[in-house]
């Protein structure tokens, strides 16, 4: 069962990589990157179960926290062109 789920997640990641490479706008790429981040967390957990090494879950938690910060940072940079922008002038 874990192998089947791993295969499904890997296939989903391949599709997301296609979308990230061919996305017409930058937002498609950001969305695909977000998707790939979530898929990496799932893959870490599943591979941890298959190989019997649950330490991978800690790395998964780290990835989950990094994923959202990366997404928000890219979006903010794209919107304001500057990560230190307060974001309040334009609302």
């Amino acid at each position, binding site marked *: 069962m*874990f192998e089947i789920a791993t295969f499904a997640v890997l296939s989903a990641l391949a599709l997301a990589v296609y979308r990230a490479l061919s996305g017409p706008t930058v937002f498609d790429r950001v969305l695909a990157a977000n998707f790939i981040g979530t898929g990496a967390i799932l893959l870490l957990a599943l591979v941890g179960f298959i190989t019997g090494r649950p330490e991978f879950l800690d790395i998964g938690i780290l990835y989950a926290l990094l994923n959202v910060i990366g997404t928000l940072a890219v979006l903010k940079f794209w919107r304001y062109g500057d990560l230190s922008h307060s974001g309040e002038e334009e609302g």
Partner: protein
Amino acid sequence: MMDTVLMLASGALLIVGAFFYLTGAIGLVRMPDVFTRMQASGISDTVGVGFLMAGMIVAAGPTLIAAKLAIILAVVVFISPVATHALAQAAMHAGIEPVLASRRVLGLGAGLKPLETKPANAPADQGAKKRKARKAAARPVKRASKAKAKTRAVTKGKSS
């Protein structure tokens, strides 16, 4: 006996989760514009991740591993809508118009209001162009095109 039941339940949850996860990924590739793709990836981020994590929690039993899996599930479930919301806001801010099947637009404060009726696959979208031009006139800085935003980003990066 109990072990077999738990393994079967975990396997079923994993299969269902894998199915939904793959469904969302296929939607990510096949949907027509960025907003519908967000909706498709929402399937994966809620139902897919939820079922997969539930399957792994059942397989792990009441251990620390299950607690860590629950933490990951909570983080993903709380943070994925935030990221999607920010992404949709940024896309709208950048001037990307959603692809609409009928000629309806979200009026400000007026809810859904029907526009003039046209065939769904009309070649030139005059209404959207007019709306864009009006918005550009109202907010010239914010409605900068993508190329302009790029140059703005570059110049800002240089000046700071």
